[in-house]
């Protein structure tokens, strides 16, 4: 069964102290050429029937993301990864 994947990221203008802490730890691994790390959240949703992108979008907008500080993107993921490409639905910049 196909699942809907919602990727939630802090908006670019919101400071991500977790990402900064990870970025600051990278030199300890000998990594010195990374300039930025930002951490988000991936949510996988499975519907009882056919995946419904519109309802997934509503779920993301109402609960999974906080539009004040976060943007989200939605895409379908097919079972075998045999990608029938589905255009991502972007939650950024929409009036809410």
């Amino acid at each position, binding site marked *: 069964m196909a699942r809907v994947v919602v990727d939630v990221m802090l908006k670019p203008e919101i*400071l991500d*102290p977790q990402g900064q*802490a990870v970025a600051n730890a990278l030199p300890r691994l000998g990594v010195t050429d990374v300039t930025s790390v930002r951490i988000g959240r991936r949510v996988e949703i499975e519907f009882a029937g056919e995946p419904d992108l519109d309802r997934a979008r509503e779920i993301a907008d109402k*609960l999974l993301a*906080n539009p*004040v*500080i976060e943007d989200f993107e939605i895409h379908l993921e097919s079972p075998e990864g045999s990608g029938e490409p589905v255009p991502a639905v972007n939650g950024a910049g929409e009036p809410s």
Partner: protein
Amino acid sequence: MRIGVVTFPGSLDDTDASRAVRIAGAEAVRLWHADKRLPMIDAVVLPGGFSYGDYLRCGAIARFAPIMDAVVDAARGGMPVLGICNGFQVLCEAHLLPGALTRNQHLRFRNHDQALRVENAAAWTNAYEPGQQVVIPVKHGEGCYVADERTLDELEATGRVAFRYLGGNPNGSRRDIAGITNEAGNVLGLMPHPEHAVEALTGPSTDGLGVFTSVLKHLAGAPS
């Protein structure tokens, strides 16, 4: 006067909030997150803690608790609503207050007595002198208040910044904001814990009591 105090799964400070209500001279009415209606009460407190384990985002799941529909309706109808710490996060998630509370910028939990300045005189702040300095504990990991510049300017211009941090900002909040009210002034979200500063034995001061006596004054019809 009867003031309701909501208990969500994971609330911690509901008992202290109820005690503060009683010390201020009102009756505390315990409310359960799964209740669909509010009993006869004059005001509501959403207490601190970790409702629903802070899963997803702080306050994000509590916002959809059955009792919240009734709280949101009551707040829109003018009933005084106070959200402390996690309760502030719930009020932002429920869109009763603008902005959001994010991870402390330094990533550390902060737990200490905090100086604050009272900056408005609304339902939950009218018992303080304008500009009064108070000491009230903070204890939070996600108390960094953020909103866009336009919202911040509007909050400042309309006297909706209720409390501001003094002598050091514990979490990186924009413009040192510790507490804000809604447009009508009946809803207050506050990151520090006034319910932990209501008697000399257990608090750093009794400065927090003014939040609770303010609402009693407000409900009694005193000009606020």
